[in-house]
C-alpha cells in the first residue's frame, strides 16, 4: 500500500505581550516548540529523521546552515534536510517537500521548525538590507522594507479597481475580533475602522494598523506516515494538495503590482491536486503581513475575482460569525508576527481541523486551505488540509 504523509503534531511557545514567556535564545525556543509538537504527535525526538528549517536567525554565523545547526542543537542526525527559504511562505512549502520525502520513503518522521526572538532582541528595522546585487536598485531610494513594496501594490490595486482604504481596514478589524478570542494573541482590544483609518501613516496608503505586528515566536510541525500515526494513536490531518511558486523579490520585478501571481500559480496546482472546488473549503488561513496582502491573496486564490477583494471583505465578512472565517487565531495583524509567520497558519489550521481551537473554534471544519506569502509579495505556497 502506498505511503501517505500526514501531519500528526503541532507546537508553539507561550507569548505574552508579543514576547516568548521566560525568554530564551532562538535555539532554545525552537527546541521548546519542537518538543511540544512531538509530544502532541506522541513521538520522540529520537524518531525524527527529517528536519526542515527556515529563519532569519544567526546570520552571519550558524544560521547560514540552519538545519545543520538546529539538528546539532537538538542532538539528531537527519537523513533528509530542507532549508528552503522563500520567505514567510517557506513552511507551507516545507509541508509539501516533507510529504514528498515521506511518501517516497526518504524519511519517516519530519520536523518543521521556526523561531524568532526579534522583539526581545529589538532586531527589526525598516531599512538595513545591504545594497548589493539586486538590492542596489531598491535601497538607494529609501524604500521602507518591506512595507514600501506592499504600499506600492496597495496604491496600484486602489487605482485599478477602486479599492478603498476603508475596505483594507475591514480586514484589520475582522482579524482583531478573532484575536480577542485567542488568549495568546498580542493585541486583543476591540478595533474600529476609524481606529485603523486614524492610525499613524507609515507608507501611503498603508497605516500602522494595516501592518503586522513585530513579535517573537516559535512553532513546529511534525509529519509522518498515516500508518505510523495509527500505530502511535495520534490523529492524522491529511494533506490533499499543495503548490508553490515565486516570481520576484525586487518590487520592480513583480509581474503585476495589482495581482498576486505566485498565489495564483500555487493555489491552482493545489486545487488540481486535491481535486476539489472552492465550495469544499470550510476555512482559510492566509498570510496577513499587511491588509493588502490578504485582499490580493483572496483574489489570487480564486475566492473572488481580481479587483473584487474590497467588496468581498466588506461588512465584516471574514470576522467571527461572518460567512468566510479567515485567520482565526488573529493573524500576523493581531496574534503574532515574528518575521516569517507562515508556520502559525499551519498550526492554527490543524487546531481548527481537530476541533481544539477553544472559544474561536469554527463549527464543522473538515477542509482548510492554508496559503503563505513571502518576501515582498514574492512567493506563495498553498496547502489544502482535511481531517477525514
Amino acid at each position, binding site marked *: 500500500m502506498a505511503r501517505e504523509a500526514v501531519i500528526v503534531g503541532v507546537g508553539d511557545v507561550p507569548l505574552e505581550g508579543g514576547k516568548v514567556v521566560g525568554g530564551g535564545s532562538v535555539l532554545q525556543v525552537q527546541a521548546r516548540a519542537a518538543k511540544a509538537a512531538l509530544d502532541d504527535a506522541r513521538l520522540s525526538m529520537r524518531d525524527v529523521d527529517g528536519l526542515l528549517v527556515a529563519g532569519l536567525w544567526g546570520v552571519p554565523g550558524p544560521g547560514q546552515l540552519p538545519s545543520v545547526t538546529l539538528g546539532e542543537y537538538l542532538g539528531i542526525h537527519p537523513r533528509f534536510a530542507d532549508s528552503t527559504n522563500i520567505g514567510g511562505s517557506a513552511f507551507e512549502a516545507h509541508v509539501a517537500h516533507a510529504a514528498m520525502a515521506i511518501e517516497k520513503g526518504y524519511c519517516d518522521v519530519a520536523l518543521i521548525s521556526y523561531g524568532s526572538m526579534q522583539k526581545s532582541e529589538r532586531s527589526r528595522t525598516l531599512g538595513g538590507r545591504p545594497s548589493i546585487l539586486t538590492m542596489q536598485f531598491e535601497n538607494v531610494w529609501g524604500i521602507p522594507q518591506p512595507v514600501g513594496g506592499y504600499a506600492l501594490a496597495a496604491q496600484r490595486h486602489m487605482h485599478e479597481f477602486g479599492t478603498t482604504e476603508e475596505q483594507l481596514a475591514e480586514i484589520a478589524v475582522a482579524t482583531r475580533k478573532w484575536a480577542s478570542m485567542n488568549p495568546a494573541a498580542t493585541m486583543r482590544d476591540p478595533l474600529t475602522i476609524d481606529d485603523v483609518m486614524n492610525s499613524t501613516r507609515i*507608507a501611503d496608503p498603508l497605516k500602522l494598523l494595516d501592518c503586522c505586528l513585530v513579535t517573537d515566536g516559535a512553532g513546529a510541525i511534525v509529519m509522518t506516515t498515516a500508518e505510523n500515526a495509527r500505530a502511535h494513536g495520534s490523529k492524522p490531518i491529511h494533506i490533499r494538495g499543495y503548490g508553490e511558486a515565486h516570481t520576484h523579490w525586487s518590487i520592480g520585478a513583480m509581474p503585476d503590482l495589482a495581482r498576486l501571481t505566485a498565489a495564483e500559480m500555487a493555489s491552482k496546482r493545489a486545487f488540481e491536486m486535491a481535486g476539489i472546488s472552492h465550495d469544499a473549503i470550510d476555512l482559510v488561513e492566509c498570510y496577513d503581513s499587511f491588509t493588502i496582502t490578504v485582499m490580493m491573496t483572496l483574489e489570487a486564490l480564486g475566492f473572488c475575482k481580481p479587483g473584487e477583494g474590497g467588496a468581498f471583505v466588506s461588512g465584516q465578512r471574514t470576522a467571527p460569525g461572518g460567512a468566510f472565517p479567515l485567520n482565526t487565531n488573529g493573524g500576523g495583524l493581531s496574534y503574532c508576527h515574528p518575521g516569517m509567520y507562515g508556520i502559525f497558519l499551519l498550526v492554527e489550521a490543524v487546531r481548527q481541523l481537530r476541533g481544539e481551537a477553544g472559544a474561536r473554534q469554527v463549527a464543522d471544519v473538515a477542509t482548510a486551505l492554508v496559503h503563505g506569502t513571502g518576501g515582498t509579495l514574492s512567493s506563495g505556497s498553498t496547502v489544502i488540509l482535511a481531517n477525514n
Partner: protein
Amino acid sequence: MSETYEKPQPVIDPGTKPFWDAAREHRLLLPRCRSCGEHHFYPRELCPHCYSDDLEWVDASGDGEVYSYTIARKPAGPTFAADVPYVIAMIKLDEGPRMLTNIITSDVESVRIGARVKVSFDDVTPELTLPKFKLESE
C-alpha cells in the same frame, strides 16, 4: 552635492557598472535585447524576456509615467529621517521596463498614478549620481 552622504549607496558590480557610470554622465542607460528587441531593467546577463545573451546598452528617453507610488511617512532608517515625507515611485519607462526611484517634488500630495515624468539626475557624491524623476507638470 554633499561630502557626507550617509544614505545607502549601491555596491556597484561588473554587471551594473555601465548603468551607474552613465548616470554620472547624466545618461539613463538601459539594456536592450538584439534578439527580441525588448528593453529590461535592472541589467541582467541574459534577456529576462527571451533569455538571449545578445544584449546591448542603449540610451533611454528618460520619459515615462508613474505606475505606482508611495509617500514614505516613516523613513527607511535614520539617514532618510530628514526627508520625510518623500515619494518612492515605480516608473514605467516609455521603453517598457519599470524602475523604482524617487520623485522630486515640492508637493508630495500632487503625485498620481499615470502622471508623466522625466528623469532628473541627482549628483549625491562626486562618484554617485542617482537617476530620480520629476513630474512633467512641475
